[in-house]
């Protein structure tokens, strides 16, 4: 089979050069986190929604649980945290983001908290995550988020103050329901906005200072602009060949989602300039673009580069995805920098999973049409049911409405043991052959 022959040629992804800057920004951020206690900063642990601008404005060091777990996985240092978690009784079928992060919390308590453990090793990133002074839970859709935060609080002996923001799922069953519209949308927007204002009061209590609103306005103006730049660059990938891939946008998640705001706008300006230059010169994200694919599912953080190269080797440009294109301040127009809270609440409400299937699937189909994809690869992440919930329905709809083939593979967000390389190879090869067959049939 011709695809298998190509497999041996070893083509690699033509990654955006500018994403290297993201790597430096990420490293600088974690160094800042690891120094935070020494610098006398308050530390807040949070999961899910990007509440970090609220914290950054107040001078609080923020640690996003998923980001820490993803960082460990990307550096292939996640196993120890997962082992510590398992020793305490957390089972393998639990969200591996949570398991990894809870393992850090357990490790932290053992080595710092009660002094009963072994001497800590400064290179051990499991232990190195500084303990929280407060926890804020603001998780859309997935019930795991709130329970994860609650268990974190219990690991720290319930001594760390915790604040919960409840973000309802948008069921969308009324005639006026739709994306960003309808009574349910307005009501849930108001409800989350009210809670975010309560959260500000909680932050004020922790810092003992009035909340610096002007600082938040400045940060949100920058985030809004960074988001616009990111979306503009993503939109340019309708070009053929696509100048950037889903994997470039994966690498760009941290800057838009949880890095210090200073530098983020510049980062996306650089990215946009490079994407524009590639469009102008016809340079693609893969050396020979023959297939254009949509990626449904969350990222397999142990395998970002691996998967980017694998698809490049198949001449498949993975152009867009639910994870990258339907999340992370993806509706900047909702944000009024001078009164940003409601717009922030609304961006939290439209995380890629927080709309029920009729709305969610329509958005995905629209993206597939926009980027003119030939097929869809679906990552069934074993412990992230928030992403896997609608995947059979998405596949069915893609077949029915778009007439494109889909291919599913099993993996996970940060637990490498669930990933089966040969299953992915055979299924993706089969899908690409199906695309070839359709093209031949169409040309005949």
């Amino acid at each position: 089979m011709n695809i298998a022959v190509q497999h041996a040629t070893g083509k690699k992804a033509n990654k955006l050069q500018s994403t290297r800057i993201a790597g430096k920004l990420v490293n600088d951020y974690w160094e800042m986190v690891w120094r935070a206690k020494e610098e006398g900063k308050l530390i807040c642990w949070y999961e899910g929604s990007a509440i970090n601008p609220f914290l950054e404005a107040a001078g609080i060091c923020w640690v996003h649980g998923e980001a820490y777990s993803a960082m460990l996985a990307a550096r292939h240092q996640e196993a120890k945290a997962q082992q510590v978690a398992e020793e305490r009784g957390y089972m393998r079928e639990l969200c591996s983001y949570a398991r990894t992060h809870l393992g850090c919390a357990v490790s932290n308590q053992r080595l710092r908290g009660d002094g009963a453990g072994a001497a800590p090793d400064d290179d051990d990133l499991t232990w190195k995550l500084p303990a929280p002074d407060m926890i804020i839970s603001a998780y859309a859709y997935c019930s795991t988020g709130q329970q994860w935060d609650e268990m974190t609080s219990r690991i720290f002996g319930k001594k760390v103050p915790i604040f919960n923001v409840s973000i309802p799922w948008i069921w969308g069953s009324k005639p006026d329901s739709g994306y960003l519209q309808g009574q349910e949308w307005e009501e849930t927007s108001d409800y989350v906005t009210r809670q975010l204002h309560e959260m500000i009061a909680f932050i004020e209590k922790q810092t003992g200072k009035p909340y610096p609103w002007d600082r938040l306005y400045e940060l949100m103006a920058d985030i809004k602009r960074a988001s616009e730049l990111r979306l503009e660059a993503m939109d340019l990938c309708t070009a053929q060949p696509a100048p950037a891939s889903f994997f470039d946008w994966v690498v760009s998640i941290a800057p838009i989602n949880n890095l210090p705001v200073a530098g983020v706008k510049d980062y996306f300006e650089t990215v946009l300039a490079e994407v524009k230059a590639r469009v102008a010169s016809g340079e693609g994200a893969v050396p020979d673009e023959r297939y254009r694919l949509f990626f449904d599912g969350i990222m397999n953080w142990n395998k970002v580069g691996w998967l980017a190269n694998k698809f490049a080797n198949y001449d498949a440009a993975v152009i867009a995805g639910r994870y990258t294109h339907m999340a992370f301040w993806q509706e900047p127009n909702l944000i009024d920098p001078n009164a940003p809270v409601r717009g922030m609440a609304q961006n939290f409400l439209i995380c890629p999973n927080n709309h029920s299937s009729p709305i969610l699937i329509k958005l995905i189909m629209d993206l597939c049409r926009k980027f003119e994809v030939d097929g869809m690869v679906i990552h069934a992440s074993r412990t992230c049911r928030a992403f896997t919930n609608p995947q059979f329905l998405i596949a069915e709809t893609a077949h029915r409405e778009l007439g494109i083939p889909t291919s599913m593979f099993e993996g996970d967000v940060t637990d490498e043991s669930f990933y089966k390389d040969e299953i992915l190879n055979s299924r993706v090869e089969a899908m690409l052959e199906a695309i070839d067959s359709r093209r031949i049939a169409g040309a005949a």
Partner: protein
Amino acid sequence: MDRQDIIGRFAEAAQDPLGYAKAWKARTGRQVIGSFPMNFPGELAHAAGALPMILQESDEAITVGHGVLFPFYCGYTRSMVDQAARGRFEVLDAIMFGDHCVQLLGMADAIRMKLPGTRVIFFQLISSMNDPWTQGRSEESFAKLRQELEEFLGRPVEDAVIRESTRLFNSNRRLLRRLYEMRKEGTAPLTSVEMQHIVKSSMIMDKAEHTALAEKLVAGFENGTAAPSRGLRLHLSGHFCQAPKPELLAMIEECGVTVVGDDLFHGFRYISTDVPEEGDPIAALARWYMDRNTGVPCPTRVQNNVDWDAFLLKAMREERADGMIVLMAKFCEPHMYYYPEVKEAFEKADMPHLLIETEHEGMALESLKTRVETFVEIVKRREAALA
């Protein structure tokens, strides 16, 4: 009708819930409203003149459901989509639910897509239980559910009728709690399977019919003589949305064990708390929702000032239980999150417990039996050493 006849009637409904609903519908000509566990107030649907029933995991092997949800989902959610995809829910006029569990949401979404002709009504109950706005938000959720129910049925559901339904449901719960008391005292030596039939059927049957039978059953046990416990006294914990398989419960008791208490959803958890009968009925339901979690804490909710592990240890002292068996439905995330807290608390309290993970697809009962027998033996030796 003697005791066994009554339990037999309960068992029939528990074993064939949809069959019961079909017969009820044919008999009454009224609507059947299914709900997903664990916090939907059946009182509302009952007040509207419908039969509220909590939809149950089926014993059938999952077939077409595999094409809707992945195999790494709990047995309840996979069984529900399987039943929906096979057309088993034809008897239902609507489905209502308010609980927030990520697998349950995925299941509900799939069921709505698979059953376009069935109205699926949802309004998410807040799961953070001790916020200043929890009561108010819960009231909003129940008011929305009531409003949608009224829209669906095309008629109002009056406050006075909700209060009547509340009284009936409370009396049913009280009767079943009385059975739990008598089981603990030894005057109602009901097996775990019988207790499951009694509670599970109360999730399904017409409440007045169930209550009338329960009254007779309770009366038959009142003033009885306390029989001595047979073997070890154990508490059964866990298993939320789906009922543990009867053969598993029977196997545990065959190992020389008397189950004296539980916090299973198809057990004490379901009947633990009454709805206030006075005042605004929607506010009362919200109060009930919050009281349930302080009464029998649930790992599907978060409440920093309530500890499930402490509740379990207290319950065991009151039940004079010698140990606990934890039944965990495979892939149940809330339970997996909370279990290490329970494990640590039990280890600290030097209280023995055994964890059994259960599966929809059937379990190797003989191998589990060896584990339970070993656990029983360990607890007995421990008790003997302490004596």
